[in-house]
């Protein structure tokens, strides 16, 4: 087993691509170290990416925000500009783990861990976030939802590292929100979760919408039909009821230690209603 701390992306990619055996990328480590502790993974190479130039920064660009892969979620919460533009993404990121975990965990790690219940992913998917992937073949930008392909599996090739997550600059009258259901008030993994991102026209009518559901399928679901329910509405009671129904219907959940199929379907609808209402209010809708 080797631990390395490269200073450049090129070096990191090269080391990863050239390694034989199992390798692991370490940013916050809040998933990796748990898996190592449980004996689920014994990497031959650990590549700590925190010393790589720029990876621990949030940059505001003309296009929006670039969140470095090594930025801890606690730092997201401390960025006023990001919080103002993407409150749903930030609140989702802030829900991952405890204060202790917040100081370490990253949204990129949350994405690459590829858990269907990852808190930040539905919010990122709803936000239309993109991931900048750097690998031996160069750099490419892909929608975040194409990163996880199933529980614990990603589409990243050997030697590829996500460098940053990109969020667009906000159009006026936009709002996003994220909600999850957990049995306790903290420290749980989402049983069901929902992220909604809306933009309104000048009359408060939903112009565009994205609805994502977590922990109800093998990967986070982007529910196009739910978006269609919202578009053209002012989120009246009937729309919300239809939204709940569509979301419940879109779920493909399983029974497990955290919840039942029945429960997940029902609560997915309830959360969708609540989270859409919050996003709508944040977008300035009344």
């Amino acid at each position, binding site marked *: 087993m080797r*631990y390395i*701390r490269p200073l450049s992306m090129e070096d990191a990619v090269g080391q990863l691509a050239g390694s034989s055996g199992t390798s692991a990328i370490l940013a916050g480590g809040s998933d990796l170290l*748990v898996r190592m*502790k*449980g004996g689920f993974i014994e990497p031959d190479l650990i590549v700590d990416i925190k010393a790589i130039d720029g990876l621990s920064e949030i940059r505001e660009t003309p296009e929006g925000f670039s969140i470095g892969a090594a930025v801890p979620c606690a730092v997201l919460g401390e960025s006023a500009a990001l919080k103002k533009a993407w409150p749903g993404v930030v609140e989702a990121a802030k829900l991952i*783990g*405890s204060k*202790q975990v917040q100081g*370490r965990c990253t949204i990129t790690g949350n994405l690459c861990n590829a858990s269907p219940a990852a808190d930040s992913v539905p919010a990122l998917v709803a936000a239309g976030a993109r991931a900048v992937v750097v690998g031996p073949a160069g750099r490419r930008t892909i929608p975040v939802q194409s990163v996880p392909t199933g529980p614990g599996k990603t589409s990243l090739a050997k030697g590829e590292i996500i460098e940053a997550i990109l969020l667009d600059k906000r159009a006026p009258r936009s709002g996003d929100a994220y909600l999850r259901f957990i049995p306790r008030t*903290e420290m749980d993994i989402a049983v069901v979760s929902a992220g909604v991102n809306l933009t309104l026209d000048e009359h408060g009518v939903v112009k565009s919408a994205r609805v994502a559901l977590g922990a109800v399928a093998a990967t986070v679901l982007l529910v196009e039909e739910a978006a269609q329910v919202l578009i053209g509405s002012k989120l009246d009671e009937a729309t919300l009821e239809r939204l709940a129904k569509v979301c419940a219907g879109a779920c493909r959940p399983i029974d497990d230690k955290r919840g039942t199929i029945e429960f997940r379907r029902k609560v997915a609808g309830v959360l969708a209603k609540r989270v859409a209402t919050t996003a709508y209010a944040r977008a300035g809708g009344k």
Partner: protein
Amino acid sequence: MAGVAVSTTINGDTVEFLCQPDETLLDVLRDRLGLTGAKEGCGTGDCGACSVILDDRLVCSCLVLGAETEGRRVETIEGMAHGDKLHPLQQKFLEHAALQCGICTPGFLIAAKDLLAKNPDPTEEEIRFGLAGNLCRCTGYDKIVRAVQDAAIVMKGA
């Protein structure tokens, strides 16, 4: 497996140690440096008993590799009191009997110290959510929250 040589600062002192690449900071503190104040309750970041402060961030030392601490600053429970003078939080934990068995206490004190450093005047709710990453099975948290509230008052006055 090659050992990693690390130079770091712990409670203000420069410390050098050799550790395995997969060894956690918690294991380094406890097994290599004899600093057993941080406890392992779970090893998976769920109980907070191993809390330390790493470069002004509260972390679970079981979720940090020892190798990662190169050139960084670590604060543990052993550095909380100044000589024989207890930190106000330590004093208030004693006065309020905010501990029964005491195994979670070092983690709570470190987490509470971090909480008050960032929010000197927290509400009860802020304290409760701020300390949600630390499990206590004995007290029902009541006396812990009261001790933190009381310490906050003392520290503001200081």
